[in-house]
């Protein structure tokens, strides 16, 4: 890993839900200053849980970090409230959008700047978000619950940006977005990273995109980190190519062919 300064250091954490379900089994990862780190892995691997552990949003899910430590710029943060973390610049974009249903899009965005006090800055941020997502501007007076899935996703990302974070935890930002918006979102990530020196930790299923835009990647499987390395290296790894990028053995396979080669059971034969 590069010698750059580590801002976020997760070491050996275990997470238990409901006192009985052990989900993370010793996850360690580091996020360097100004890095874009991708967290990859299949359904249920524990990506969301890892992000929640970092942002301290586990409590509401009745989850608990039982082992290990999480440090932000050298400070232990397990006992801080999520609000404290936002004050320190760490903002999470939650999986599944979580927009404030009754608030309009614009109110949602403005609420995002709760921790910001300067009016001018807030207005500038709002303009910036609208510039990133013009669709939000056209829907700004609509209650969030009545916008489409993708619009809500944009709203959730925009809302997080309104807090002017220094570290953003992005949980599946591309989910439900149209292809060109997906690309835009990643461009925004790159843009913010380059211009405003924002650090990103992103959990993604869209491995292709994620590896293209990130510097470093971790791959999780059932609660453990199974592989990590610079993004470029991961992208050339045979297993990653086969299972995550779908280009194992050269050519990308058609989803239609997948059907015959992967079939293992006839349904209701």
């Amino acid at each position, binding site marked *: 890993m590069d010698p750059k300064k580590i801002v976020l250091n997760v070491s050996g954490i275990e997470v238990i839900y409901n006192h009985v379900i052990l989900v993370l089994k010793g996850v360690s990862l580091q996020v360097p200053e100004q890095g874009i780190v991708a967290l990859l892995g299949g359904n249920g691997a524990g990506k969301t849980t890892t992000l929640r552990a970092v942002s301290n*949003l586990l409590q509401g899910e009745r989850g608990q970090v039982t082992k290990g430590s999480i440090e932000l710029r050298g400070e232990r943060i397990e006992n801080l409230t999520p609000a404290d973390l936002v004050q320190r610049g760490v903002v999470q974009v939650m999986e599944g959008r979580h927009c404030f249903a009754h608030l309009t899009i614009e109110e949602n965005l403005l609420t995002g700047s709760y*921790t910001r006090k300067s009016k001018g800055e807030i207005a500038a941020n709002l303009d910036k978000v609208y510039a990133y997502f013009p669709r939000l501007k056209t829907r700004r007076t609509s209650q969030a619950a009545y916008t489409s899935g993708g619009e809500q996703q944009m709203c959730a990302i925009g809302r997080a940006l309104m807090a002017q974070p220094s570290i953003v935890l992005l949980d599946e930002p591309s989910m439900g977005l149209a292809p060109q918006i997906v690309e835009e979102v990643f461009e925004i990530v790159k843009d913010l990273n380059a211009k405003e020196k924002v650090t990103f930790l992103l959990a993604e299923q869209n491995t292709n995109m994620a590896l293209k835009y990130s510097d470093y990647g971790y791959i999780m499987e059932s609660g453990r980190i199974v592989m990590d390395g610079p993004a470029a290296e991961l992208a050339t790894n045979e297993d990653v190519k086969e299972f995550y990028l779908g280009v194992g053995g050269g050519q990308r396979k058609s989803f239609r062919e997948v059907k015959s080669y992967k079939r293992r059971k006839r349904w209701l034969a």
Partner: protein
Amino acid sequence: MGYFLETLLGGLMTGMLYSLVALGFVLIFKASGVFNFAQGAMVLFAALAMARFAGWLPKWLGFESVILANVLAFIAAGIIMFAVAWMIERLVLRHLVNQEGATLLMATLGITYFLDGLGQTIFGSDIYKIDIGMPKEPLIALESTFQGGVLINKEDLIAAVIAAALVALLTLFFQKTSTGRALRAVADDHQAAQSIGIPLNRIWVIVWCVAGVVALVAGMIWGSKLGVQFSLSSIALRALPVVILGGLTSVPGAIIGGLIIGVGEKLSEVYIGPMVGGGIEIWFAYMLALVVLLFRPQGLFGEKIIDRV
């Protein structure tokens, strides 16, 4: 006609008093998504504190002035309500972030029991008096127009004015400040609110504290009318139809709802009651609210209930 007018006025003013209690419900619901059944208990608790302090303080500090006693007692009770709000956040709400409505509601019922017990332990279970100098004798107006005149209760009139002022203040707070928006956000989604840095803890203390002060005002007015004792908490049940009629999330709704319910129940009791044996006002108020809900499930001014897939 004079009689009708009088009943109407009486209803309007009772309605305002209900609004005062309903306001407490609305505040907390709007700002945290908690349907606070403990509002009635808070009214009682606040009133007990105020009544007792008004009696104790002059003794402890050795002064006589009734006005001073009342002012100090109000402040003392306010401080107590702040402490209550703080404790509730610390001991209860903080541990129930992101739980379902039913769970939170149940927790407030637990709080109700606790406050009922605590209030009576600290302050006793006798009838106490709050004497803030409200005029008790009725005012007879329009005697020349109607035979017997129209009776207006001065005490109610003053109470109604206080209630209206309080509501105006709170409406402004919700509409014009960014904290108001944050409060609404918290009510929608605790976790998302946390994720963008809204400090739930502080917000909750603030809201419960404001609700506590509203309860104190309600307790003071109702207490001076009825005497401060246990049944004061039962006015919460009278305020519930007001809350749902006006809409759980609307501050002005609490007022309008209060007026409608107040008038509705008084007119029904006075005009329909005698035909069916009386005692119908309570269920009439609820039925009235129910009928309105059939047409507007979110109450008159409530936010539309969102239902999307």
